[in-house]
């Protein structure tokens, strides 16, 4: 991809303008993570914990919100572009659709950070979560890798979404199972071993565990390095698979005529 600053800026401007047109869309950034966090805390109480685990219940809710928004906005972007005929205009231009999807997903991931930030603020201001003892570097690097993992999976899904008019339904199917597999709101080690093996193929599972453990004060560098290596490797694998699929998907949609909604 030839990165052009003008395109990066314009893509971000279009998405930001569309997203901030009304309070309902904007509210998604607050309401969704708030709902997930509330459910997390209620479940923690029901399980007999007097105080909820802030990392998994509150911040986990924020990450859950990030993931949901990524799936939602990616689906919305491609579906509305197909319906509005913009997808044809993009594909018919010299800029590759995958480049546009990559930028869009990056913007969606970065906008999702708002959810995580709000969850952090809520954890600190409402529930008294402190930053004492946390592994700042570990959490910071893990967060960057989490963003990379989300981006690589988002680009993969966006490519899949472009492939067919009904692929949005399949992506909707994936939203909750992936959240379940990656342990957004609970330690992944509580899941059955075979589920952990499946989850092992997802880059965000490794980055997320690294981040959660760092927030809980884990300073074990070996533990973190292994998690980071898996996260980077799998993210790169997702990107390579997306690149490999790209030409096939583009040929497929141009053969089937599924670029337009009619």
């Amino acid at each position: 991809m030839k990165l052009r600053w003008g395109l990066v800026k314009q893509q971000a401007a279009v998405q930001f303008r569309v997203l901030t047109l009304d309070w309902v869309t904007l509210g998604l950034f607050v309401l969704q993570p708030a709902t997930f966090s509330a459910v997390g805390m209620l479940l923690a109480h029901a399980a007999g914990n007097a105080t909820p685990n802030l990392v998994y219940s509150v911040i986990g809710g924020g990450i859950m919100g990030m993931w949901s928004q990524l799936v939602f906005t990616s689906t919305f972007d491609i579906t509305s572009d197909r319906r509005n005929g913009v997808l044809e205009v993009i594909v018919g231009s010299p800029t590759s659709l995958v480049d546009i999807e990559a930028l869009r997903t990056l913007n969606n991931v970065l906008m999702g950070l708002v959810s995580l930030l709000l969850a952090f603020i809520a954890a600190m201001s409402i529930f008294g979560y402190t930053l004492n003892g946390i592994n700042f570097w570990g959490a910071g690097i893990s967060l960057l890798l989490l963003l990379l993992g989300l981006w690589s999976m988002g680009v993969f899904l966006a490519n899949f979404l472009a492939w067919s008019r009904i692929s949005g339904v399949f992506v909707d199917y994936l939203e909750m199972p992936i959240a379940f597999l990656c342990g957004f709101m609970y330690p992944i080690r509580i899941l059955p071993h075979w589920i952990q093996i499946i989850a092992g193929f997802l880059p965000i599972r490794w980055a997320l565990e690294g981040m959660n453990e760092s927030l809980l004060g884990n300073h074990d560098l070996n533990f973190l390095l292994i998690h980071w290596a898996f996260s980077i490797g799998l993210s790169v694998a997702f990107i390579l698979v997306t690149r490999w699929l790209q030409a096939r998907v583009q040929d497929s949609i141009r053969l089937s005529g599924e670029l337009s909604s009619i």
Partner: protein
Amino acid sequence: MNSFAIEADALNKTFRSKTGLWRTKSKSTVAVEEISFSVERGELFGLLGPNGAGKTTTVKMLTTLLLPTGGTARILGQDVVRETGEVRKHIGFAFSGSRGLYNRLTAVQNLRYFAELYALDPVVTRKRIPELLELVGLQGRGDDKVETFSSGMTQRLHLARALLHDPEVLFLDEPTVGIDPVGSRELRTTVRSLLALGKTILLTTHYMAEAEELCQRIAIVKKGRIVALDTPDALKRRISGDSVIEATVQTANSGALLDCLHVLDSRTKIEFKNNSEPEKLCIHTPEPARVMELLSPYLNPQYVLGLEVRNQTLEDVYVAIIQGEQE
């Protein structure tokens, strides 16, 4: 240098779909079959045909949005399948209706975004957007959201979008559909000015008057095939050098008029449009003077309420070709 801007050689497009949940059935729909034509650089070429004839599918193959299932097509000498990227740099396209723009953004915001897709220099973009808005008659409306635009304004913005990168070849798919007569006339004026700038234009339309007024050559498409291709004048001559006499007649006495015309040979075609009251008698004839002579005793309000003698229009030709194909 190749003198052709657009070349289509035996283009085919078949869509395959599946139906049913359990016992799935495959269905093939032939949208375009063996379409061949070429368009000279600087020419305005028209594709005419009824709904579902394959015009839009042909345009989408030529604009790289659909892959042909057979045949080849070249734009400015470059293959639309193998040299897609190069083709896309040199073409612009605008499809009918309000699709193809971000309706919740302003006209300028839309144009800025689409200019980036064509990697236009920001300085060029800043200069070009007001010029294009003026060209399509949208000056002063650049900061208005597209959702507030009328169909005609949206269509003109589509045209501005298609012209952003100053393409050599322009594809306009039914650009005046849903636009009022004044708007259509303005759009036709813009198309003519683009032609004067040396652009090659492929236009699809349902409107015969529009095609006759604008196009240097026309291909009539029916069920995915080209059934006629020539200049508008040659097409009219091809059907015949006939004149058309349209008479509005008293229904009760129309039989007498038909009787008097029986002496004419088979070159004269008489058609009754009896779905209206009073009835319309349409006579396509190579000898209008003879027909007028035969009708002259009946040219009074008891038989004939109105009479018009005219040359064949492209619409007559189109109807004759399409109906002839059906027969």
